[in-house]
């Protein structure tokens, strides 16, 4: 067995790569140049691209606003009730987004908090705001985890020194720890954004799939697949594939950068 082990592992690794290439590369072969132009100029896809960009950028920003401070405090430890809090925060990571979506839908449609928001004019269910909320809820634990591990790699002694040099707690974080976590922060944001662009299950449940209203790129793919408009569906799929590829490229570049530091 010994002399076969290495070749078998190598063959399996290349096999996995081959399958990925065949399946995803195959997708591209199904689109014709005509349908690309037709799809990209169609108002429906234009709308979906725009809606996806706007909602994903807003939800990523909101994720950052919450995840950077939370990840920081969790990385420094010593918070009362830290263990149960971390477990709670990380639970949605292993939850199917569809389940998160159902829970969000019931929360906003049926609980006093949700109906209260509705009463003061904040409607989340089946609206574009719902898209942002769904993306934010699903991606937040992920970004908290990334930020927590990025901050955890930075010795708190840098901040201690900064504080003896005249910094308040916040200044030490702002001038020292945050810039030192730059690589982790940027790659975390890029991945979060890309996940938000592709979020489907939770968005479908909370915001619904209304053509030209809550139609993000993945929803457009789903709707056109359902109605048999294969050309549009495939082109949409290729756009999402392209976004994933670009994201992965950036991510690899950034992680190379952080290894050099």
């Amino acid at each position, binding site marked *: 067995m010994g002399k076969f082990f290495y070749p078998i592992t190598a063959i399996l690794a290349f096999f996995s790569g081959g399958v990925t290439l065949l399946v995803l590369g195959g997708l591209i072969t199904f689109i014709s140049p005509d349908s690309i132009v037709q799809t990209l100029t169609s108002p429906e896809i234009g709308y979906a691209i725009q809606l996806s960009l706007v909602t994903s950028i807003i939800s990523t920003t909101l994720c950052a606003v919450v995840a950077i401070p939370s990840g920081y405090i969790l990385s420094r430890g010593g918070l009362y009730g830290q263990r149960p809090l971390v477990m709670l925060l990380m639970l949605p990571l292993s939850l199917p987004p569809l389940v998160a979506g159902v829970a969000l839908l019931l929360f906003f449609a049926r609980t006093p908090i949700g109906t209260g928001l509705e009463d003061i004019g904040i409607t989340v269910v089946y609206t574009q705001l719902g898209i942002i909320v769904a993306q934010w809820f699903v991606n937040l634990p992920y970004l908290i985890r990334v930020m927590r591990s990025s901050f955890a790699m930075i*010795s708190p*002694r*840098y901040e*201690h*020194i*900064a*504080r*003896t*040099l*005249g*910094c*308040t707690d916040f*200044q030490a974080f702002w*001038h*020292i720890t945050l*810039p*030192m976590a*730059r690589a982790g922060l940027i790659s975390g944001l890029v991945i979060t954004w890309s996940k938000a662009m592709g979020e489907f299950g939770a968005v479908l449940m909370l915001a619904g799939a209304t053509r030209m209203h809550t139609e993000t790129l993945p929803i457009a793919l789903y709707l056109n697949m359902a109605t048999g408009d294969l050309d549009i569906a495939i082109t949409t799929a290729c756009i999402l594939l392209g976004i994933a590829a670009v994201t992965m490229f950036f991510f690899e570049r950034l992680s190379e950068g952080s290894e050099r*530091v």
Partner: protein
Amino acid sequence: MLFVDNVSLTLGDFHLNSLSLHLESPEYWVIIGPSGAGKTILLETIAGIHRPDKGRIYFEGNDITHYQPKDRHIAMMYQDLMLFPHMTVRENILFSMKIRKTDDDDIKEKVSDLVNILGISNLIDRNPDTLSGGEAQRVALTRALIQKPRLLLLDEPLSALDSMTRERLRQEIRKIHQHLKIPIIHITHHFEDVYALAEKVAIMQDGMIVQTGKPEDVFSHPCTPYVAQICGTENIFRGEATADGTGSVLNLGALCIRITAPYSGPVVVALRSEDIIISLERFRSSARHTLQATVVELIPSGPFIRVVLNTGIRMIAMVTRTSCEEFALKPGCQVFVTFKESAIHVIPTGELDDERRQ
């Protein structure tokens, strides 16, 4: 000046246990103790990073227990320096000026002053990760000193350096202390740092300061076996003392020594290796103790040679290379060792051992 009054603090595995320390003038203090004694958290607590669970800290007449680190005028430097990697040397040095928004001319004057003392003017535009150990050390010192602190805390500043650089930086730190006349608390586990730098020494053990004083007083009168051991007293023997009316007999296993001070019970006997005289023949002197010994081993140690002797028990004496050659010492030689009774330091251990076992 600085008065740490009965401070207790627990942080994970480390703790301070009703620790008190009193600096009266701008002296150079060295705190020595084993790893895990809580030395670093003591410094961090003085700097204001941690708030004590109990006790107070007074500095220049003010109760600073609840002051923010930035308001204490206390600078600190870690062994691993913590130069900010995303800033150049200049930005590192000027960081406190930028944060505190200090007046420009003032900065220039201070910078050139310190940069000259420490000789780092050629490093000013480099990135911290391109500096050698000694260079990085000087930059970190400059960064700490630029804000004119009124107390400087050094956490094992010399431990990570090679012996040449360590010696040079020791001299520089001494120079800074004399030049700026600020008190320094320097933590170390290197005994040499005490000899080389300390005006006062404090021994720290299990979160407590167990002995303080001038180095020579502490070395010649260690108050616990642990103190004797870390003070570099090389001959430490455990034994039993029996009082016999006019003095006591120290039974150290294969060797008994009679002394005039009355002790009884379990003891540790400390005898500094420098206090042992080696001779080829028994000679008449005021020294009361002369023993016959066999040379077991010669260990070169800088300008000296440590001579391992068997007097029934293992003893170490320190001689110069010259006397070693003159006496033609080699393993197997029969010699006499002589020491004065005042060199024998007896530390009763009965109670202390019980305490330490708890």
